């Protein structure tokens, strides 16, 4: 009887799970496996899109492809800059939102707004803000007397990179603040009181209580953000299209152009595979270091 119930429960369990697994397999597993397979073929306009097996040629070509290495470099800069800025700023905002003040509910609502809005449209708003003639950034800098003529923010590779980083920091800092705020709220206040009795400064109690106890949330926020930043597409695609002169072209934009503009499917697939492996590597390294620092931190407290 018990066996029968258990068997029936198991069957129900699978019935409930299989649709989800099927959809996930179709949309996540199939495209990756398909890209691995396609990456061994040359499929482009040169052979009228009829697949020809060429082994590792696509990967060999990638090693020689300066544009690929340039996009990888841009992606790295973008990822490191946005994630670290967002972490610091997100922490600051979370600390502010964790204080008690009048109108806190409204401020918390406002503080998640940027995260919820469509990135592509937000990218349009930031393009307008950084506009060389009528943009607000130039207007403010001119009024402050810091510059004499308007800066062409999106027309210079370095400045364009700074612009897209600023826009991304604005858009995704709220995500980190939300996660960190939830962590802050779960820290018991008597820990701070004990610290205050010991005569600790705010900075000391932040270092000794807040940071170590917040580490799980920081780890998760970091992992999510690393992966998202590494795959950034819509924001940069709308703001600069990867320009000027490839100055803001990330791996995602290069993959998209390779497939949709140059119709080079085999090489695009190889780019997908390598990006996927790099992403796995980044996430694995990040989680390794973070779990180690987590252990050390919990040992210290």
């Amino acid at each position: 009887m018990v066996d029968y119930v258990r068997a029936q429960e198991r069957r129900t369990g699978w019935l409930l799970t299989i649709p989800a697994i099927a959809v996930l397999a179709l949309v996540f597993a199939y495209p990756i496996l398909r890209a691995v397979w396609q990456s061994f073929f040359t499929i482009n306009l040169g052979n009228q899109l009829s697949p020809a097996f060429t082994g590792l040629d696509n990967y060999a070509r990638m090693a020689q492809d300066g544009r690929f290495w340039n996009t990888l470099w841009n992606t790295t800069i973008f990822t490191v800059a946005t994630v670290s800025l967002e972490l610091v700023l997100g922490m600051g905002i979370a600390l502010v939102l964790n204080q008690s003040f009048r109108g806190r509910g409204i401020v918390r609502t406002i503080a998640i707004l940027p995260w919820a809005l469509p990135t592509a449209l937000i990218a349009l708003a930031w393009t307008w803000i950084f506009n060389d003639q009528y943009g607000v950034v130039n207007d403010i800098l001119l009024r402050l007397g810091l510059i004499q003529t308007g800066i062409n923010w999106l027309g210079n590779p370095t400045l364009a990179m700074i612009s897209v980083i600023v826009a991304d920091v604005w858009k995704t800092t709220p995500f980190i603040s939300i996660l960190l705020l939830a962590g802050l709220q779960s820290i018991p206040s008597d820990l701070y009181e004990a610290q205050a009795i010991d005569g600790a400064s705010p900075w000391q109690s932040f270092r000794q209580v807040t940071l170590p106890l917040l580490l799980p949330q920081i780890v998760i926020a970091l992992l999510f953000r690393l992966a998202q930043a590494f795959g950034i597409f819509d924001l940069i695609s709308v703001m600069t299209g990867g320009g000027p002169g490839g100055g803001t072209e990330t791996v995602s934009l290069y993959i998209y152009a390779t497939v949709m503009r140059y119709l080079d499917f085999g090489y695009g697939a190889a780019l997908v595979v390598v990006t996927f492996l790099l992403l796995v590597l980044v996430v694995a390294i990040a989680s390794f270091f973070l779990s180690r620092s987590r252990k050390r931190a919990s040992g210290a407290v």
Partner: protein
Amino acid sequence: MTTTSPENQQATVHRPSVRRFILPIAVALTVLFCLAPILWELLTSFKTDDAIAEIPNVYFPSPNQLTLDQYQKLFERRPFLNYLFNSFLVSLASTVLALGIGAPAAYALARLKLQGERIILAGVLIVTLFPPILLFLGLLDIVRYLNLGNNYLSLIIPYTAINLPLTILVMRSFFQQLPKDLEDAARVDGYSTPRMLLDIVLPMTLPALATTGILTFIAAWNEFIFALTFITREDMKTVPVAGAQLGGASPFEIPFGPIAAATVLGTIPLVLLVLIFQRRIVQGLTSGAVKG
């Protein structure tokens, strides 16, 4: 921790007064940071062309510099109501599907003992880290093979899938917190598992479904790559893609006003969602990310 320098003690003594000045400034900066870009776009969308192009910029326009023309121009140029409708349809359908497929799976993963449960969960977690750019090439294959180009399904199915991991994680943590007594009682009363799920568990689950649904709706509304790739028919485009493709009559004319209007219209539904469901969004995000 044990040694405290004199400066630090002083800092502790001064802390309340420092807080009284710093906190309001920090709050004001936070609000300014989050709202300024949105407000600027809002203001631009209500300005006349002359006011938009005035240098130095006009931050406080006079009444004769304000107009609804930008919205009118937007609707004259493009079928913007169509875009809004498409976004609504696709987001709503994929939300319903993600909940309908994800919640049962979450229940099974929380309550029923499945073999390979850990592997499934690990898979779900890993998949949340996949950026869509890695998927669009393979999905393009499927879309071509099934002839789904310019069909809402080409968006609804991927959107359902990209929302499934979050749905499963949030709903699973909800089911784990749900007391098991009612389900046990139902079993004693002779309910079969499916009937128990429908009659007893589902009604209790509605708030959690709403929480998750808001998050999936937002994610679907904002998606860009798939919508850009699989839909090329003008009247079937979603808001983010259509907005991004708003160009001028000539390459030299960038229609800043209509673009601002499109940005405002395309973000209003989400602003409303955030204003109404702020608590649920925070709750869902944290339970999905942290407990997962």
